[in-house]
């Protein structure tokens, strides 16, 4: 009873401190919103407006037919027509065009006489991802063009015997925004929670109030609970708001259950509070706390699979990444949003989180008192 009252007093104090301090308020409101929109809009692999130039030596009906298909695809934006090889080199070099389509002079003539022709495409490899995707897309356009040629009877030939039929599950139009935005709630709330908790102990240490808490009749467990709750509550609020934002603003589908979402976020936030408090207990000043959380956030987010797949990393790094809590929540969130996972399907990603929490939380509670000055 006494213990509960003490915890309650501490929790109320933590909330009031966070809400009254303009800096803390800013941490939970300002950057998260900026991050949500910047991430949501800027962090995308979906290509739009890929600048391309055309070097059409054929200038024929058929070449124009092919080019109009490119124009109509919606992904490309014409930057200009070229007249010779020199211009071609120059336009790629200067990044005026990231893709140049070169159609030879005999394009139509060859086609009409049923000879095979080649269309040359040159891509700027400085951004290899853009180059690969744009090339792939151009390939499908040419395939369609081939089919049209045969249907229109321009070319007399059997259709290709082999045909690739492609389908993608869960994300039919392969929009990478879904992939990134569905995990945003987790990432952003993590940044908020880490900064809040990593500062909460170090701020008290810097202002000397932490000594007051240690001298008061608190057990380390009580301090731990009191310090964890605000982070979890604010983190949960942020995460749920941004999850709703993902669904209603960015139109990401939500196919799983809300229970699974809440439980997964809860497990994750407990873990993250553990990490934040650990950073905080190790730091003597707010400066160190901030630097420490930065040192955690950078690699944890980079290696989380948010932007680049974990499977692409070398094996040793994948093993080391098993202790990265962020990767589990990202998988869990994507499962819930896009694959419609329920609680039992997300469990395999939740127990590792709880395992990490069971190390970090007791360790930080121990450090409250044993971190020598």
């Amino acid at each position: 009873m006494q213990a509960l009252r003490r915890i309650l007093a501490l929790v109320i104090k933590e909330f009031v401190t966070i809400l009254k301090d303009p800096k803390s308020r800013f941490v939970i409101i300002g950057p998260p919103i900026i991050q949500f929109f910047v991430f949501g809009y800027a962090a995308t692999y979906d290509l739009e407006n890929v600048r391309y130039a055309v070097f059409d030596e054929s200038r024929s009906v058929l070449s124009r037919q092919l080019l109009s298909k490119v124009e109509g695809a919606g992904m490309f934006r014409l930057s200009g027509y070229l007249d010779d090889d020199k211009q071609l080199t120059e336009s790629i070099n200067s990044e005026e065009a990231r893709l140049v389509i070169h159609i030879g002079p005999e394009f139509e003539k060859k086609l009409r006489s049923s000879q095979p022709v080649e269309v040359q495409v040159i891509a700027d490899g400085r951004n290899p991802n853009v180059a690969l995707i744009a090339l792939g897309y151009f390939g499908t356009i040419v395939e369609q063009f081939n089919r049209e040629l045969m249907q229109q009877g321009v070319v007399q030939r059997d259709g290709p015997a082999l045909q690739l039929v492609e389908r993608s599950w869960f994300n039919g139009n392969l929009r990478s925004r879904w992939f990134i935005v569905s995990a945003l709630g987790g990432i952003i709330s993590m940044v908020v929670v880490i900064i809040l908790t990593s500062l909460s102990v170090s701020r008290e240490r810097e202002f000397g109030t932490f000594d007051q808490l240690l001298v008061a009749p608190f057990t380390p467990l009580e301090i731990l609970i009191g310090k964890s709750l605000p982070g979890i509550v604010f983190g949960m609020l942020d995460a749920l708001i941004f999850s709703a934002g993902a669904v209603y603003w960015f139109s990401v589908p939500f196919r799983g259950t809300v229970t699974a979402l809440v439980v997964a976020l809860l497990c994750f936030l407990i873990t993250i509070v553990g990490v934040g408090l650990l950073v905080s207990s190790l730091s003597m000043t707010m400066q160190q706390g901030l630097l420490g959380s930065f040192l955690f956030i950078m690699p944890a987010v980079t290696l989380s699979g948010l932007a680049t797949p974990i499977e692409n990393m070398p094996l040793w790094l994948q093993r080391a990444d098993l202790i990265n809590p962020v990767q589990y929540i990202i998988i869990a969130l994507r499962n819930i949003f896009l694959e419609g996972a329920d609680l039992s399907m997300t469990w395999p990603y939740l127990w590792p989180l709880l395992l990490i929490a069971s190390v970090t939380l007791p360790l930080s509670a121990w450090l409250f008192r044993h971190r020598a000055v």
Partner: protein
Amino acid sequence: MTDAQINDDQGTKADAQEQAILSAECVCKEFAVKGKPPVQALQDISLHALKGRVTGLVGADGAGKTTLIRIAAGLLVPTSGRVTLLGLDSVADSLEIQSRIGYMPQKFGLYQDLTVIENMELYADLQGVPGAERAHRYDRLLSMTDLAKYTKRRAGALSGGMKQKLGLACALIKSPELLLLDEPTVGVDPISRRELWKIVYELVEQDNIGVFVSTAYLDEAERCSYVLVLHQGKLLAEGNPESFTGRMKDRVSLVVPAQADRPRHIYTRLVGSRGIVDATIRSGRVRVVREDTSETQLAAALDGMHAKIEPAEPNFEDAFMALIPQTEGHFQVGRGEGEGAGKMQGSNDDIVVNTRELCKLFGDFQAVKKLSFSVNRGEIFGLLGPNGAGKSTTFRMLCGLLPATSGEISVAGHNLLRSGAKARARLGYMAQQFSLYGQLSTLENLSFFGKVYGLSGKRLKQRINWAFDEFGLGQWRDKAAFALPGGYKQRLAMAAALLHEPDILFLDEPTSGVDPFARREFWLRINSFAEQGVTVVVTTHFMEEAEYCDRMLIMSQGETLAMGTPAEIRDLVRSPQNPRPTMDDAFIGLAEGTVDKTSIAAGTAGNEEMAQGDLS
């Protein structure tokens, strides 16, 4: 009388201006505050400081001392009026001025990562001291400041006193024509303070420079040749120290307690009595400043006590206290409040705090070396020593905030580091810098600490109301704690520590950074709690505050220099040359090793003073 100009030292006005090395004319300074009327930091200040003199600027915290010095240094622009230094305007010619003066800010800008000599070289480069002169200049400054042995040490690793001396050396690197010093002796031990003043006077005498120094130590004002008293942004009085003390003639008495009485009792009685401006405990006696020359009111206040009244030589502090207008309800403490009185259990012979052979190592550094002492119930026990002596380390070990390397500690029968939360429930703790939650209001702070110590409902309300009354915090009820003035922060911190009526009170540097008024008030309160049976362990670096303790331990560099009652400690340095030594004298004697420390342990002091002390 408060606005009196005491001008008997100064010659004709024209004469003064000719010699004036620094003069201010009608200087006002306002600071804008968001959403509120601007703060008037300085109001219509006009003054002169002369060449070849030390001019002191004295005042409590927030009087405007730092603002004035910063304006002189060209760091701030006055809202109106002008300051001229060396005949140059502080705003228009600040660069020219800055190459001809030396300035030492309160928190001197030493680069902690640079060594002593590197710091000096930096300032020599910045001030453009020619290479040929440097060796000579460094030699002189290093020998003056006694830092020659430490040239390769990093500034961050120097003690507080050495840092200040190095700061002074840096400010003096290019023989300035005028030296501006902003509270150069804050937090510095008595030896270093004495040395700093010696250096300043050497410079004034040899180089005939002008020195403009601000200080909150009133005893230092007496070392200045001319003193200006600032109060709440106004110039209250000026003159040489003698002119101040002269006015106090026949208004200061010493009350010598009879054998059975502690000076504390008399002190508590006298403070706030009618006709008494100020009362302090000095060298086992109570020093009283009266409103006028008549002794009748003092005698009336002492009615029923066996105490002798002796006349005393007035000093600057007496004059200062008499000069500053007393605020309403200033000394309202401990009157008619008997709630906690007499309820403490156990006899005064109980040992409440005990340590044996306590040691603390930080790496190779021995912060505390073999410390043994014990504190009885109801005692005020002081841990004294300069910054870095190991006081705070010892204190933190006592409170269970830091594990000891070896040795035993027990507080009320527990080792607080290991024992459970319950053992801490009867403790009150007030951390250095009045650790409050700055964003929370006064009420929220109190209610938080109350709840933490298990108060609730009616009882909590009752105690919070008690705190509001007792500490006069009512007007600040909903104000955020960081916005309180320094003295009220201290009160709030203390109220928070006392809310649950603890048996033992730990106070870490409760008086650092507060002005003389708040310090007096604080000790008065502590006294009244001790009278009620609360055990108090307190650290301080103000030597004169030791007088308020029942017993104390003086530390230096982790070692025990001496332990005993104030009288015992003073007796250690008593000599024919100095028949009435002060605590500062005692500390200097002990630290310089001119006194045989062992005599204390043997308890050989046995004289008149001792008998009046606390052995009763």
